């Protein structure tokens, strides 16, 4: 039978859309975890206090580090990732471990130090959580270095990267974690 190509397109679009909506209501898929080796680029970024930060020095310091990519006016993913950071900081307060939390902006045009300061304040961030922004070219380099490049901030995805302080390798977690899962992953990585 011959199928009207226009109608086929319509059906494809509607099925695709209903599939997308399906995502919204299904239980989330389990996050994926891989072990990766990344080379941190030699870029200078700016933190929430306006101070220049050499990213390589910060991330390769040998201290436990966790990294994610967010932006200040993100609607869905970043607030949840940041709630995870805030909750981890609360839990860390009871441990001697010093984990450095780093969020890199993927909207450098808008994320000025002031915007980043206000954002961290909303999450009641404590010292040890830095929000970094910079030149778009440098932000692109960072995203590429961590296999996290997205051309448009609205299509970003939940990614958490935990640096194993012993091996220097990165545990790449794709997806959303509960609080207990986050703590378990940190322990597994040896940062707690």
């Amino acid at each position, binding site marked *: 039978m011959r199928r009207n190509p226009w109608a086929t397109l319509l059906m494809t679009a509607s099925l695709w859309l209903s599939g997308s909506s399906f995502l919204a*209501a299904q239980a989330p898929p389990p996050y994926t975890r891989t072990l990766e080796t990344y080379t941190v680029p030699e870029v200078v970024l700016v933190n929430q206090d306006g101070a220049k930060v050499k990213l390589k020095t910060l991330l390769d310091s040998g201290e436990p580090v966790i990294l994610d990519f967010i*932006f200040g006016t993100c609607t869905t993913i970043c607030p949840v990732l940041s*709630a995870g950071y805030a*909750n981890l900081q609360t839990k860390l307060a009871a441990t001697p471990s010093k984990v450095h939390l780093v969020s890199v902006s993927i909207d450098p*045009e808008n994320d000025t130090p002031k915007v980043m300061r206000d954002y961290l304040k909303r999450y009641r961030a404590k010292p040890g959580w830095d929000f970094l922004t910079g030149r778009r070219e440098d932000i692109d380099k960072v995203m590429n270095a961590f296999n996290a490049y997205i051309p448009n901030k609205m299509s970003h995805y939940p990614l958490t990267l935990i640096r194993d302080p012993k091996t220097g390798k990165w545990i790449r977690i794709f997806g959303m974690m509960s609080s207990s899962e986050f703590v378990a992953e940190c322990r597994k990585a040896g940062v707690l």
Partner: protein
Amino acid sequence: MSGWRAIPLLSRCLAGAFGFLLLAAPAVAAPPGKPKPAGTVAGLPEDKALALGERMYRQGLLPSGEPMPSVVNNDVPVAGTAFSCSSCHLRAGLGSWEGGIVTLPTNGARLAIPRYWKFPNLSPEERRELKLQNPAARPAYTDETLAHLLRTGRDPSGYDMHSVMPRYHLSDPDMAILIHYLRNLSARPSPGVVGDTLRFATVIAPGVSEDDQQAMLVPLNNYVARHNQFSAGFGNRMYLGVGGNEMSGAYRKLALSVWRLAGPPETWPGQLDAFLAKEPAFALLGGIAPGEWKPIHDFCERAKLPCLFPITDLPAVSDTDWYTQYFSKGYYQEGQAAARYLHGLDDPNPTRKVLQLVQDSPEGKALAQGFRETWAELGRAAVPETLLPEGKPLALAALEDLLAREKPSTVLLWTGASAFPALAALTQGATGAFLSARLLGSQLTSLPEPVRSQVWITYPYREPKLEAKYSLYADTLLGGLTQRHPETRISTRTYALIQILRQALMDMDRHFYRDNLLDRIGMQRDQILPDYLRLSFGPGQRYASKGCFIMQVGPGASPALIRKSEWVIH
């Protein structure tokens, strides 16, 4: 296979059917809503409950003033002040789609009807009319099932929402207040939706030349005429890529009124009120005024009327106002860029002595304010400012006294070309001067050659040598109906407005709420259009271009601009 065959047949007849429905029965777009009897909510008058509910929805604060407690991702506690309902569902409540996660609508109109996976935008009446038989994914919410959803994440069909949706621990009275707000949120189409037409207006203030008016009006009217030439069926098919198809029923004809203001700015609010009462508009498109946009900005805030990309370089600068979406902060942003650039040069030894010489005009003051506020935000000490009479040559003797007294290493000279004769005195020794490209306009390239190496220019646009291809593209789509007037950038900015509006109308679908129009622009991807290097968006972001270049004027009688900085944004 029967389903595959049924749809093409159905779709073929729908264009005509919708044409009838949209024209004859505008009520199909109106949600059935759930009329609330007059009375009280949780013991409060309804309007009071509505205000408290709005605060819960937008700011995550309980009626008590405490943060709304919730849990995301099964066990992550979140205070409502970190992020609220509107962070994801957005201000109008129609939801968002970001990072692979769809946030469903939570507005009154959609909560009051069943949800369907297929063609979710059709009303129950339309479904009956079209004899659609597919079952509902969930029934309409009652107050009880909505409260259950908000507490547990489970909808009345037993579906569990994604764990990123906070589960709110609310008392019964607080829950009643939030539900009262949601029932009223985007429950009825906004004013300006009349039958099958979306009515827009554009504002022209007194003192705008006929050429400048036409540079904006011709492309706007051309766009409206081209949009309106489609049938409803074809128009709906144009919306295919955003959840639409010819069943979306989202296409509307457009109408554009011109609201011409007269007299002094303090009389404009009254005139605008009268225009709006006579011709309710869904939003203002563009608009043009020779001076400050603030009177129109304030009117839009008060009337809750979106205003998209007015042609102004003197916008109101605010972190919190909602209803006017600008291209940039204009002159203010150039002052801001000067502060950021100089601070970047100074790090880590901020010993620079800066002096601001400011033309006594809205433009000069906006430049100075942008520098002053950003300089302070960067932690730098206030710098001396001197106001200069507008349009008069600088008094050299007084200027030399000032320079001898202040001994600045950098002078910010926020004046037009009238300052050129003073530049030799100003740039003696190692002193550098900053000027504004906007304020100098075409005089920029007349900068005296001997001082060019010590003068820096704040330049808010794309590099001129890279601009041609973007402007040519705009010319093509402006249809040759107007001159481009490169210096004013009015027609190219209007072109950019049209591109963003076209996308926003498609993304808005048939949810004709003013806040939704702004929400959809906030969710747009970055745009590469004429004039500005990049236009970027985000919920609540109201100035799309956010940086400037720092330039110098090259040698010769027809000098090139030489870029001296990256795009200055921090």
